[in-house]
């Protein structure tokens, strides 16, 4: 009986060929980072307490290997082979570019964490590293997703890890608040996103990027189907806008960023943003490329509102993490300019900006980590008064990071802004307004960034600051600081190397229909 059934379902070689080869090698980062989650959890059980410090190194090495593996894995592909796993995963140059950003940042944040955690007094380090690696895996998967199911699973994978990480500080009520708020609001937004995916599926009959794009390109979206598609796009945009924290979907950002442990804040501000921008790049100019007239006005308005709102709100902040979180909101607005402008320069400029945003934000948050005290002191801007006397190097790095965030040459921030605003002007029409708003709000941004610099160099601390006794950062954190600041300056001075790579990576945007026939 059973054997007869088995005989009927015998899988022939032809069936296997129909399925296509399973390209395990294209997922090296996921094997390393995702497998690392298990390794670290197991090691946490096995290792005695005195040896737990090994965990951070294990996870750092695994994440660094995961980032490096993008160079040897079975990637990138071009043409009709650009997607693997039955067209679920995109294996192109952009995947590699983003793997370096997302996994590299996760690795550096893991490296920076022990100093911070030991200062805060957290002992449950095994879970911490495991969750960071899970989040990194999710972020990387989001950047390579070529299928809405992979997309959603990846999104939820890193979101779940981040909910826990945000509330990770055991004795801090703000941390718990942060985790809980993030969880509530993110779930709320995810519901919209999922609903949008369902609507799109309903209209087009697929959740695969390439097929949806092909459908939209071939069929005139009119009638009921068109309504479904448009509502689907709107709902998906809600989910995206929430994750990238565009105004008015941004309100969770400062509260969550402020309460979360600082390395996690950095991971959210950089990794999440990079991953979601990657998804943006694959979904909007790619999947929804044929109907770009429909979504561009939405993103246009979102970009303007986000730039103005984020920068204005940052002006009156007194907590550095809140300030940086509003700055992250404002940068989301700048990044969206690149999506709306949507030409060759804007795509590569956007990737370049992402790279620059990564290093300069990492530098700023690494300094915040180094200055923060055990009970969360040292987070007010006034605590930075006279920092250059206590920690001249930290003050110098912070200055470079802030100058870069404000867009002052020769830092990478200037060139990123130059490329993106230039692309907006190049695309012409109303998009020039984007560049204008971007420039005006950059001036506002200079005000609040320079406020910190002025505090560090000219202000006298009113009394002995709470963080005066914080010693020099550990060597591992110092390494992170060095990488970030060298990146901030080096990518600015040698901008063309990174831009060339970004150009290569950006070449694949909007071209995922190449494997339509398979």
């Amino acid at each position, binding site marked *: 009986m059973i054997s007869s059934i088995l005989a009927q379902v015998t899988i022939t070689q032809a069936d296997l060929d129909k399925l296509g080869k399973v390209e395990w090698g294209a997922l090296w980062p996921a094997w390393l980072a995702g497998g690392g989650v298990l390794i670290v959890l197991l090691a946490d059980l096995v290792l005695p307490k005195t040896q737990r410090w090994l965990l951070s190194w294990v996870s750092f090495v695994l994440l660094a290997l995961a980032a490096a593996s993008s160079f040897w894995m079975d990637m990138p592909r071009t043409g009709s082979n650009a997607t693997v796993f039955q067209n679920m995963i995109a294996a192109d140059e952009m995947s590699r570019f983003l793997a370096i950003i997302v996994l590299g940042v996760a690795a550096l944040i893991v490296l920076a964490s022990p100093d911070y955690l030991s200062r805060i007094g957290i002992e449950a380090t095994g879970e911490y590293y495991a969750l960071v690696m899970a989040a990194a895996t999710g972020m990387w998967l989001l950047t390579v997703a070529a299928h809405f199911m992979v997309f959603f699973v990846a999104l939820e994978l890193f979101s779940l890890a981040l909910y826990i990480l945000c509330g990770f500080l055991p004795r801090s009520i703000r941390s718990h608040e942060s985790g*809980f*708020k993030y969880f*509530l*609001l993110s779930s*709320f*937004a995810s519901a*919209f996103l999922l609903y949008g995916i369902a609507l799109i599926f309903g209209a087009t009959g697929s959740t695969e990027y390439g097929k949806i794009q092909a459908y939209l390109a071939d069929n005139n979206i*009119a009638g009921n189907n*068109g*309504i479904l598609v*448009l*509502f689907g*796009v*709107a*709902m998906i*945009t*809600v989910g995206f*806008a*929430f994750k990238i924290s565009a105004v*008015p*979907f941004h*309100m*969770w950002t*400062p*509260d969550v960023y402020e309460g979360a442990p600082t390395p996690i804040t950095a991971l959210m501000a950089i990794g999440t943003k990079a991953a979601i921008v990657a998804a943006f790049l694959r979904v909007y100019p790619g999947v929804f490329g044929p109907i770009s007239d*429909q979504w561009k*006005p*939405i993103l246009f308005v979102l970009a303007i509102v986000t730039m103005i*709102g984020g920068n*204005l*709100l*940052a*002006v*009156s902040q007194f907590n550095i993490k809140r300030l940086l979180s509003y700055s992250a909101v404002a940068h989301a607005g700048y990044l969206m300019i690149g999506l709306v402008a949507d030409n060759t320069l804007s795509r590569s400029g956007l990737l370049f900006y992402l790279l620059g945003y990564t290093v300069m934000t990492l530098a700023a948050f690494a300094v915040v980590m180094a200055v923060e005290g055990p009970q969360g002191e040292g987070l007010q801007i006034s605590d930075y008064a006279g920092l250059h006397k206590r920690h001249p190097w930290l003050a110098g790095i912070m200055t470079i990071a802030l100058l870069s965030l404000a867009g002052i040459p020769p830092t990478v921030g200037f060139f990123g802004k130059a490329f993106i605003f230039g692309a907006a002007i190049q695309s012409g029409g109303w998009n020039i307004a984007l560049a204008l708003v971007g420039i005006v709000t950059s001036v*506002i941004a200079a*005000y609040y960034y320079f406020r910190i610099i002025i505090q560090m160099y000219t202000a006298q601390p009113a009394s002995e600051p709470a963080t005066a006794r914080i010693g020099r950062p550990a060597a591992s954190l110092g390494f992170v600081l060095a990488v970030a600041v060298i990146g901030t300056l080096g990518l600015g001075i040698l*901008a*063309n190397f990174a*831009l060339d790579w970004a150009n290569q990576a950006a070449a694949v945007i909007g071209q995922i229909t190449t494997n339509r026939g398979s």
Partner: protein
Amino acid sequence: MPEAIGLVVLLPLLGFLAIALFGPRMSQRGAAYLASGAVGLAFLAAVVTALTPLISSSNWGSYGLYKYDWTLSGSWKVTFGLAADPLSVIMALVVTGVGFLIHVYSIGYMTELGEDGKRHYEKDYRRFFAYLNLFVFAMLLLITADNFIWLLVGWGNVGLSSFLLIGFYKNKPSAVAAARKAFVMNTIGDVGLLLGMFVVIANTGSASFSQALNSPNLGGGEWREWAAMLLLIAAVAKSAQFPLQTWLPDAMEGPTPVSALIHAATMVTAGVYLIVRCHPLFGESTVATIVVPIIGAFTAFYAATCALVQTDLKRVLAYSTMSQLGYMFMAAGVGAYEAAMFHLVAHAFFKALLFLSAGSIIHSLGGEQDMRNMGGLRKNPATRTAWIGFTIGALALSGIPPFAGFFSKEAILGSFPLFGQVTHHYNPIGLEPMYLSVIGWVGLLTAFMTAFYMFRAYMLVFEGPETRLHPHSNPGSMNFVLVVLSFFSVVGGFLAMPGLWNLLHNWFQPLLKTFHRGDEELWFPIQTERLEVVELALGVGAGVAGIVLAVGLYSLTRQRSADNLQPTLTSHTEEQVRAEEASSHSRQGAPIFTPRALDEAEIRRVIAGRDLSPTRPEASGDQPRLRPVLKKRLNPVKLGRQGLTGFLLYGWGFDLLYNLLFAWPGNLTAKFIARFVEPETEKAVDYGLGGAAWEGSKASRKTETGLARNYALGILFGTVALLIYVAVQTVQR
């Protein structure tokens, strides 16, 4: 190995960064050794580069080493690259060679003899060496750049480091004022360079020398003239030529090694370098071939007259530098680039030697710079090396054979036919031979005056009654540097022996071919075919006559005491200023005398022949060394002489003129703006834009309630807005 040129540029930069970043962790001496070592190694690298033609001739004269494309604006690329060609390498040899010697010299110079008889490091000893390295790096960048952009980077940075080093004694108001003045003057030149560069790039589409300068797109038209004139502004400002010359004498407020390195041997020659580097541009521009030699001749003459009456030893040398740079401009203007470069190299040696000898004397006299307070130093064992060095330098500068200055100066004067004859390499688009001969005679007269003022200085410092100051001996490293430079000042001239050989010509051969019209080379080689005996005799004769006159005047007549009655313009040392400030503090409200703040009233007083020298604090302390004030008695001859002296002393009153023409209207405008325009604008910006941002921020902050339900409401609000948009879209279709 032309690639070694990269090391030449890199090493001083590393030295600078190391001292700037880790200075406080180094010992004083360690920083000095590090700085000197960096430049010394750079010199070795430059030597390796210079040996290229011996090793392989294929790469010689190559542009674009270490090429790096910098894409910034669409498809237009700035290609950075270093040039290892004869011009840049010979400049690199001079900059690193003289630079290294001056670094070594500074190790000793920047120490003070303390009360306890031991040497103490001057304040900010490490900062000084960091700046010196920064300067050397910037200068090397300037001369090795193979494109205008990088040239500009170096150009601006030498201006910056010059500013920092002139104002090194930051507590001395006159030094700070001088630094500011130099910076402002140089900025005018920077603007000229920038605009000239733009003209070249706009017309040729390239910033690289090899492409832009030889590009036919520049044409023979108006744009070429514009480019040449704008670049000339830059060259004139950097090389302190008329009309932007006034900053150089004041720049002597910096420490003496700085004066020797920057304001004699290297930075001020950048203008000459620029003209020689851009010779395809200058040599075929009609206006430039006329204007440049005239500017050079005028400045040479002008500066020599000013040097005649200076009483400050360093100011004599400063005017002398200006005058010699004028010679180089003369030569470069008519196409005698070899002669200009030859004089540049030789001048770097003997002027550095003169400055460093003067510095030795000043150092051993505890900061005294007024020559009239010196005297009789020849016999003093403490200043013997300085005496030898100064004498050799003065002879070289006066063009006495066989010292280096003789050959190089004759090479320049040989390019100017004294009797209006047409020379072989005569550039027909330039001046008529007649006018060239006038310039030649001016050069000859200047040579005479040069010899005179140098030996006037010599007589005042080394001969005559012995000074009341007590010279102390200097460290051996300083004397060693003087010996080395003396050696080069003697043998440096043998690079090109008129009539016998011309090593320089072979050296510059690869560049030569870039510049010719038809078959004819427009690059003047130094005349090697025959000796112009008459001109040679006149040249040497002018020098000898000047020396004889000076020696005679100061040993046989009462000129020395007459000099003592002369109005003075002498710099104070930092200690003197401090002492003065302390003493003036007790006299409430008494104005502090700042010798370089040339206000109008002061210049009028000097021209009217009154004494400016205030009660000077005593260095020796035993006797007051007050200058006797002139009696008020109408004596037209004396008054005229005093007037002339004051006129020359203040450099023909150009400071006054520029103050009237530019500073005064500028001040008025600034005051007007500060009084009427600025407060309103500031209010408008502050309360308008700034207020709007702040109020907007406060208002929008109200959305941050901290309540998750309100945040969810925000999301909902956004979603509803999106849905309304989509609904409208759908209805519309």
